């Protein structure tokens, strides 16, 4: 029982850590937009792994926007 309890707590703790990390990443992305853009822009990531982590939680599809700054 003790082991099971620890397992549950560990999973819960990790889940919370993941949520906090993802929230921080999302805030960072939004802050980056606010800092660099004169006009409001879409919230975005620059890292595919971060996007995949968010997508796995809320089930939203990912759109990779490959651009060139010509």
């Amino acid at each position, binding site marked *: 029982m003790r082991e099971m309890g620890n397992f549950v707590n560990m999973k819960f703790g990790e889940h919370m850590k993941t949520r906090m990390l993802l929230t921080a990443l999302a805030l960072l992305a939004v802050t*980056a937009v606010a*800092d*660099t*853009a004169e*006009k*409001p*822009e*879409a*919230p*975005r*990531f*620059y*890292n*595919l792994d971060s*996007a*995949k982590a*968010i*997508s*796995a939680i809320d*089930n*939203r*599809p*990912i*759109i*990779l*926007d*490959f*651009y*060139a*700054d*010509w």
Partner: protein
Amino acid sequence: MFVDPKVIEFFAKEMILVQLNGDRIDTALARQYCVSGFPTLVMMDKDGMEIDRVAGYLPPEEFMLTFRNYAMGVGTIADMVAKSKDSTSRGYSLQIADRYKYTCDKAAAEPWYNKVIAAGDPLDSVSGECRTSIADMYARSNRFDDAIAAYRKIIADFEGRQAADDSRMEIGYVYVRAKKYDDAIAEFKQIVAEFKGKPLATDADLNVGYVYRTMKDTAKAIAAYEYWLTTYPQADSSDIAYAKKQIGRLKNPPAPKPEEKK
């Protein structure tokens, strides 16, 4: 950059946007996803599997509708191919071919283009468009010799028509893709000489600056754009703005965005 309020809301609530500089920074990912032009938007599910993609620009409403439909499996290539069994339309087959051309399965486009050609006059404008698209598909697949041979054949078969003029210019672009810059400049200069006084010559001469810029020969690129501005003062205003913008960027290169510094 997405600034339309509805598109901003779309990305905030329905999708996760990842912006990748496929030209300078995220080049490995661009290769992995077979990106052959910009912008290319690839939609993926939560497991990282590609659902479908959009190459080029779309108006905001069409942009959102396309991706909402993709999320439901509507309008994807797989969906279009399944529905094509009930269609004899050349236009529908052409749409499927054009969609395949920008995917990792570029070769799948060719049979669809050939189907369009076979269903009509092989020398009409639609067939000409298919022939240039096949050549373009070769170029995007790095089959440069095949692309140039295909364009040369179009020039012979469609002499004096749009497909031939387009192919003249495209040969120059293929040489750029192949990094054969001297050949590209020679091709564009040849067009300038042959089509003197015509819009094609104006466009070809503008491309000389583009070749030098791609070669990262800043001094020659600036000189080429300045020459073009003085030689073609009556050119299209958007082209004039483009040339001036390129000179500005060459003289004062934009600093990378903070978030791009990896």
